[in-house]
């Protein structure tokens, strides 16, 4: 505090003028003031001096110094970089608090169902997708696609404008006029005026739309009641509506058995006939939760036994107790044999050969044994008859664990028939207008259909899609579609629960429209807002009044609107005698949607392209997956050399289509079969402005901008969709000699080269029997420590160096909570949702195929996959292990950092200080888990502006040269801590959820406060299955794992033991012999 003496009584007195005084003491010269004055020559403040200056707080000289320095420094500020102002809201919206995110409920439509979501929004910008915790299907979890869908919103290559063939860009008004003219009806009012809800007088029954017999709609499957309503209007006027899903027909729907809803938690035996119910299933979230519940063997709870018969290698098969690999066609025969043995179905021509198969015998015996429900599931590769068989089996043995929902949808004929008719009509000029909603038929339809040529003959073709894709460019009109986070809509979840889609952000591109807006225009000639259309529908079928509507928006769904369980064909004789038989020499080709890019909808999503495929761990490619035996037969191979996979490529030519694909030899894949995935080989056209590079940059800059070359989907993989047969889209066969090797040396980038656990046991596995006898079997694998407490082996740096143990930090902020995590390997299926959730939450950048091949992927959370038992070509099991920073108490990374960039927080989190990191990489070298990720380049330097919007503002976007890794989502921890602090209460258990935990459908990841003995995480740490990965290193990790359990059929167990597995399953023999 600077206080200057204004008056000096002495000066004044000396001058002979009347003395001015300011206090009684001053005037009387009493007390300290006078004493102080007497001590020195100068008045207080007039000169430097300890005691004098103390009187006034500062001296004149100090004052001058301060002022001088202030002036100088004020001048110096001019040398700084200009400050970029952040503009505040001119008019602040209600309920928006800068820096505090809000959540809105909505739903993501995909594959004919919606996934109920809760989306995080920062100042009106959605950044993170979560499941809706109240929703009966989601229960707060999501699948991997929902997690990645946020990046689709910010896809910089999204279509931005309306395109008219020949005429370049056009406006929505142009389009409205075109439709109204084509419709022939009297155009109502001015189209522009119809834009607002106020003029929404006409209902959808009004005439004036485009509908007549010449109109055809080729639409993606949808569960939207509004779409359904508009469809009925169109169909009522003679329009034709074809629902097309790139995966082909839904065989369950063709079988007419209804939509199966599996309650695995009630099952004792689970049988899958090529059903990837934990992976590419519309209900995978529900299934994962239910399946995990059926495997929870703790505290004497029963555990299901899962038999998987698969034509590919999927995460579902990896979770099985017994895993059998057959060609998809043979799976059907196997199912028929099972049905026959269990008294359901007729048997098939190929069924007899399984009679002596021990797997078959064990399965049948197990189902027959009774004592609980047996659940049968069939996958999309299986013909409708097998689905009918499963329905019958479930009816007899399911014990109510499977219900078949009646969706109320009218049964549809096989799509192949309808498409053939459509194309014939298009060629014959009988289709005046073709509308494609969310479909990309030029890319997706079989080449043999001749759709592309026929499209040219349709006078008015309208495409509504997120991208100007293969189809869009060949249509007379392309309309940009709104992302689901920008639109109003509605839809039903897998179980039928009705949800309302509400936009979280105004459409990024004003010309974009939602499908219901387009359909309304087509049906009525009216340009109406999506909101009104949805309200209108809800008035008829759902929450009509304002209160109910608001409740639906708030909750994200309308309670008690699930589909009723209809009857399944229980016990009825299913005719399987006409199942096709595949010759032993034929090579079967199985087409599947990709677990990463789905049908291509996620192909331009960089996260999904760089997501390691759950089984192969490949990125940025699709492959022809086959067994070693088949590869040898075809004379092709994949070699691992210099840490990179070099594959031969083969040409597949069938049904008029052709594709060249690299070969991937997959352990466990059935012989005589090739699995391929859809969704690659895209050709998207983008309007995005791309910055070129100058000569200097091209010479000296290492280009790390993956968006530079245009849409990232382009040039990745090959499109196999045209190769399909119209009748059976999922499966086809070809003679082996028709497949030719094209070339060698194709680089495949995989994030995991080594699939064996070697002689270690990162994943500890025990059988149920073993677990019951020795609940702590997992601890036996701590081979160097065993029963010895690890404290006997002192760490190099003592405990006192650990912040959480440091008594001096005892009372520090945050130290009340000691964070920790458990990962239940018995529940984890490796679905990858956590990987993308982490990427989305923590701004993890992508690095591109070349860099992944060099081993520089940035995923904080990696999903390790190991093969266990069996032979190198036919493993017995496949296990998944999510690996990310385990936050060691004695972290090897911390002690080697020369600059303290990584350190321990008082609440036990191993923290990275990016600003402090200089990038020696020593921490990564010394991390036994190798979970640290280094920014070898500046991956985020040239992110397009749209992608920048997808970044979480609560997490630093890292610069090149710094190390990064899992933080236990510290930003989420701190947010909850702030709320708890404001409310002056401790943090509740489960209140902090990490991003990976929140996404996990099977509840494998549990995070919480270890200091609270009642917290779930603390309880799980006491679970006998709990073990610390590499605990023998005395790193004392905060994340521990729960050992995986198997429940093998004792009948089959000896057979596997006779063939000793190359890798031990993690049990220590001496302890439990």
């Amino acid at each position, binding site marked *: 505090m600077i206080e200057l003496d204004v008056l000096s009584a002495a000066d004044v007195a000396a001058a002979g003028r009347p003395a001015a005084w300011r206090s009684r003491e001053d005037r009387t010269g009493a007390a300290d003031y006078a004493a102080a004055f007497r001590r020195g020559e100068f008045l207080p403040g007039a000169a430097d001096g300890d005691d004098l200056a103390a009187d006034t707080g500062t001296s004149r000289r100090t004052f001058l110094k301060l002022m001088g320095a202030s002036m100088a420094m004020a001048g110096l500020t001019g040398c700084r970089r200009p400050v970029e102002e952040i503009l505040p809201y001119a008019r602040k919206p209600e309920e928006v608090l800068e820096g505090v995110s809000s959540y809105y409920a909505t739903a993501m439509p995909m594959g004919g169902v919606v996934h109920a979501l809760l989306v995080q929004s920062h100042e009106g910008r959605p950044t993170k997708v979560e499941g809706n915790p109240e929703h009966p299907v989601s229960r707060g979890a999501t699948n991997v696609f929902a997690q990645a869908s946020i990046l689709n919103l910010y896809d910089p290559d999204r279509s931005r404008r309306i395109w008219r063939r020949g005429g370049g860009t056009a406006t929505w008004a142009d389009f409205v006029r075109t439709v109204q003219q084509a419709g022939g009806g009297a155009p109502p009012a001015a189209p522009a005026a119809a834009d607002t809800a106020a003029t929404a007088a006409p209902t959808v029954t009004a005439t004036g739309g485009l509908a007549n017999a010449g109109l055809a709609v080729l639409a993606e499957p949808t569960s939207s009641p509004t779409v359904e309503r508009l469809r009925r209007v169109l169909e009522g006027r003679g329009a034709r509506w074809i629902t097309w899903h790139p995966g082909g027909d839904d065989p369950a729907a063709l079988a007419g058995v209804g939509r199966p809803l599996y309650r695995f938690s009630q099952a004792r035996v689970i049988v899958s006939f090529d059903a990837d119910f934990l992976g590419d299933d519309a209900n995978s979230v529900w299934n994962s939760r239910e399946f995990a519940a059926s495997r929870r063997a703790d505290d004497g709870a029963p555990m299901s036994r899962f038999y998987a018969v698969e034509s590919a290698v999927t995460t579902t098969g990896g979770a099985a107790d017994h895993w059998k690999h057959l060609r998809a066609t043979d799976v059907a025969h196997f199912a028929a044999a099972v049905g026959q043995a269990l008294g359901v179905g007729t048997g098939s021509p190929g069924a007899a050969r399984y009679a002596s198969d021990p797997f078959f015998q064990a399965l049948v015996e197990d189902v027959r044994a009774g004592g609980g429900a047996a659940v049968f599931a069939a996958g999309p590769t299986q013909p409708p008859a097998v689905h009918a068989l499963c329905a019958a089996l479930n009816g007899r043995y399911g014990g109510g664990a499977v219900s078949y929902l009646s969706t109320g949808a009218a049964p549809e004929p096989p799509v192949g028939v309808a498409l053939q008719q459509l194309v014939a009509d298009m060629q014959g000029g009988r289709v005046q207008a073709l509308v494609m909603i969310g479909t990309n038929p030029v890319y997706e339809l079989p080449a043999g259909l001749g759709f592309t040529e026929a499209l040219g003959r349709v006078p008015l073709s309208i495409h509504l899609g997120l991208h100007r894709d293969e189809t869009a460019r060949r249509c007379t009109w392309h309309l940009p579609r709104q992302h689901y986070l920008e639109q109003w809509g509605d839809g039903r979840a897998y179980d039928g629960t009705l949800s309302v889609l509400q936009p979280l952000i105004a459409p990024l591109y004003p010309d974009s429209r939602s499908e219901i807006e387009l359909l309304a225009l087509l049906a009525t000639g009216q340009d109406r807002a999506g909101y009104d259309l949805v309200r209108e529908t809800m008035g008829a079928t759902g929450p009509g009044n304002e209160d109910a509507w608001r409740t639906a928006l708030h909750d994200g769904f309308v309670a008690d609107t699930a589909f009723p369980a209809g009857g399944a064909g229980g016990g009825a004789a299913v005719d399987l005698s006409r199942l096709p038989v595949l010759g032993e020499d034929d090579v079967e080709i199985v087409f599947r949607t990709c677990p990463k890019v789905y049908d291509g909808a996620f192909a331009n999503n960089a996260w999904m392209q760089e997501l390691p495929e759950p089984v192969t761990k490949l990125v940025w490619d699709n492959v022809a997956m086959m067994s070693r035996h088949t590869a040898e037969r075809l004379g092709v191979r994949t070699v691992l050399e210099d840490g990179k996979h070099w594959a031969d490529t083969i040409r597949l030519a069938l049904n008029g289509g052709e594709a060249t694909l690299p070969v991937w030899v997959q352990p466990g894949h059935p012989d005589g079969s090739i699995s391929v995935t859809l969704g690659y080989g895209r050709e998207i056209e983008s309007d995005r402005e791309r910055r070129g590079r100058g000569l200097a940059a091209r010479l000296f800059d290492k280009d790390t901008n993956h968006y530079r070359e245009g849409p990232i989907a382009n040039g990745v993989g090959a499109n196999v969709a045209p190769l399909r047969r119209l009748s059976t889209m999922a499966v086809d066969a070809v003679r082996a000699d028709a497949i030719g090797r094209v070339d060698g040396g194709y680089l495949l980038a995989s994030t995991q080269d080594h699939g064996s656990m070697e002689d270690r046991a990162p994943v500890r596995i025990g059988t149920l029997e073993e677990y019951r006898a020795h609940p702590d079997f997992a601890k036996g694998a701590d081979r*160097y420590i065993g029963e010895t407490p690890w404290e006997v082996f002192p760490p190099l740096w003592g405990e006192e160096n650990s912040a959480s143990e440091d008594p001096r930090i005892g009372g520090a902020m945050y130290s009340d909570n000691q964070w920790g995590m458990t990962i239940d390997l018995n529940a984890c299926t490796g679905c990858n949702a956590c990987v993308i959730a982490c990427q989305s939450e923590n701004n993890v950048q992508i690095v591109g195929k070349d860099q992944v091949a060099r*081993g520089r992927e940035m995923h904080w959370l990696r999903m*390790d996959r190991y093969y266990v038992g069996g032979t190198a070509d036919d493993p017995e099991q496949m296990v998944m*292990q999510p690996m990310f920073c385990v936050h060691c108490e004695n972290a090897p990374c911390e002690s080697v950092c020369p600059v303290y960039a990584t350190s321990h927080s008082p609440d036990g989190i191993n923290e990275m200080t990016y600003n402090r990191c200089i990038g020696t*990489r*020593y921490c990564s070298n010394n991390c036994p888990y*190798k979970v640290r990720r280094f920014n070898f380049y500046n991956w985020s330097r040239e992110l397009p502006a749209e992608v920048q919007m997808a970044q979480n503002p609560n997490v630093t976007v890292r610069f090149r040269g710094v190390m990064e890794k899992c933080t236990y989502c510290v930003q989420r921890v701190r947010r909850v801590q702030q709320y708890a602090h404001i409310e002056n209460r401790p943090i509740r258990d489960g209140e902090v959820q990490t991003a990976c935990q929140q996404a996990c459908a099977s509840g494998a990841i549990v995070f919480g406060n270890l200091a609270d003995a009642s917290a779930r995480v603390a309880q799980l740490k006491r679970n006998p299955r709990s073990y610390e990965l590499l605990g023998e290193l005395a*790193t004392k990790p905060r994340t521990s794992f729960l050992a995986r359990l198997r429940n093998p059929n004792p009948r089959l167990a000896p057979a596997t033991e006779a063939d000793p597995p190359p890798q031990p399953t993690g049990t220590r023999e001496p302890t439990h012999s």
Partner: protein
Amino acid sequence: MATPTTLAPATDGVYKTLEDDPLVRGNLSFHDVTEMVAVHTEKRTPAAWLFWFAVALGGLSILGLSIAYLVWNGVGVWGLNVPVGWAFDITNFVFWVGIGHAGTLISAILFLFRQRWRTSINRAAEAMTLFAVACALIFPTFHVGRVWVVYWMLPIPNQMNMWPQFKSPLLWDVFAVSIYGTVSLIFWYVGLIPDLGTLRDRAAQVGRTTRAKIMGFFSLGWTGSNRHWRHYERAYLILAALSTPLVLSVHSVVSFDFAVSIVPGWHTTIFPPYFVAGAIFSGFAMVMTLMIVARRVYGLENLITVDHLEKMNIVILVTGTIVGFAYITEFFIAWYSGVIYEQFAFRNRAFGPYAWAYWIMMTCNLISPQVFWVKRFRRSIRISFILSIVVNIGMWFERFVIIVTSLHRDYLPSSWDYFVPTIWDFGMLIGSFGLFFTLFLLFLRFIPMVAIAEVKGVLPQADPHFYDGHHGDGAGEGEGFSLHRPGPSGVPYRADEGDDKR
């Protein structure tokens, strides 16, 4: 023991009373020694020197380009990945630091042990040390992700209250190497002072005043007085004593980078002695390479004799065998420990994807030096030269094997990967040799490459009893004029051809 053939002709039998084996041949006088060495810094620049200097500068520019590209783009220009966070960078660092060991070992430890044969080679070896340390420092500096803040590793008080972490072996490296570099520089410079004085006086005699002034500046007013000599020798002795522990400590500390970690294959208590032995091994090999060329080119065969080379070869044989013993001990310990990770690490070294590197290392470092058991081979110039290069290749691979094979497959098989170098990795490696030879060529051109004063000290004449009855002759030789009886005049400095023919 010397054989009669290796002895220079003993004219009057006095040699035998001094020592059996003369350290300098050709019966040189003090003046001869001065001439032999000093003339190379004084004559016109030879064309051959210019040529090789241009070549070295080419290498240096590769280094500059590599560093510029690295700093501009990031560490990703190298072939590193996540399990292999260090590869060529730290390999090169340890390699050069190791080479930097021989100089100070020769200067300090051999000095303290009164190994008088060191005098002919210590100057060049020390220079080599300094240049090798300079090369070494490039790598830890530029291998970091954010080189512009690399000074955060230094304990500089700052307004952010940031302080380096003293638990980290990387920080120990900073101290160990910088102290070693500093002390070595001072030691080298102090040793240079009498010779700089000589050069100054020689320049002044022929009227090259500018040169005399420069040399005068650097010779710190050296007059060669008794008082100067006494101070000088005391200082030299103290510095030698200071340097001696550094020789042992610096590579021990460098080895802690690995030994302190928990990486299987790194976490090994044998590392400090094994690294020091390896460093001496490679350092001597490098001195050998350089000296064999220098003595031939500059006609110093009489100063740097085959006896010197043989002694160095014995050191190479001993240290190489120690290193090889350490390699085998590591295998034994891995087996004996019962730790599967250790066992795997060493199995993987010998038979894994980098087995080729391992067997190059074994061949070069353990097997090849064993030829020096044979006296004929260790006195052969040609074999010495080839082997000295082989040894350094082997020692580079030793560091590569330790660093890369340990990192590329550690605890969790899921994270295993492979390291493939890029051209920028090679650019840095080649470029560092460019820097080294640039500096070394400058040294050869401008600085007496042999310690003139010290060599004179081991000449027979330096012994007061050399010429019986001529006490004092040869002791305390002044500059520019000689008090002692000149040697055989008119005899050109020539190689002792009998030796070189081997």
